[in-house]
């Protein structure tokens, strides 16, 4: 039983990412979309938080939203997996429920 969490806000703009990550349980998946992809960048002030969550959860980022913001695959925090729209659908299908953090 796992939950897919999606986060669409920048961690610098809203506390959405922090709230989401504080409410995950082992085996959950977190997908960063829209401005949420800003959390995935290596070297940001949120890198340590993002890394600490990876011990329990798999993290993903929507590649088209990364590309729009000039974030390349080499810019990602280690261990975060880029997915395309089909990958997004796969994640929704694999998980028991989806929680959209706004």
């Amino acid at each position: 039983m796992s939950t897919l969490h999606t986060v669409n806000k920048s961690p610098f703009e809203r506390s959405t990412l922090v709230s989401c990550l504080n409410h995950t349980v082992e085996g959950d998946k977190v997908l960063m979309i829209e401005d949420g992809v800003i959390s995935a960048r290596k070297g940001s002030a949120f890198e340590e938080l993002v890394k600490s969550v990876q011990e329990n959860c798999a993290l993903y980022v929507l590649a088209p939203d990364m590309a729009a913001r000039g974030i390349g695959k080499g810019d990602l925090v280690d261990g975060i997996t880029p997915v395309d729209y089909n990958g997004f659908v796969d994640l929704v299908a694999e998980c028991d429920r989806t929680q959209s953090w706004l």
Partner: protein
Amino acid sequence: MTMDEAGAPNGEAKKFLYVNRKAPYGTIYALESLEVVLIGAAFEQDVELAFIDDGVYQIVKGQETDGIGAKNFSATYKALGDYEVTKFYVEAESLAERGLTADNLMEIMYEDEDDDWAEKPSIKIVNRAEMAEIMSAQDVILSF
């Protein structure tokens, strides 16, 4: 001819600072700011731009929007020099917090008519205290 010499139709040009705090594409703020910047420039006001917080992402290079079905308006920033918008203040702390450096920003240039049309960079990296000083020197501040 400078802005002040050109003068606005109804008097002297005012100093306008457009403060950009949002990443592009996730919301409409960045695009709307650009529209208003062009209006300000058309009315021959003294227009300067500030990029703080997630606003620094507006001028990050390598933006590719084909995958999200949104218009890539990043090239517009490079054209602002032709409208005498030549001061882009970017906050160093905002870059650093996001794992960005000046090297991640687009090359935005203008031609200085007072210096034999020499090409010069529009982007100036300033620290938070300097940004506060820039804000306090304006006639009008518009936030996006």
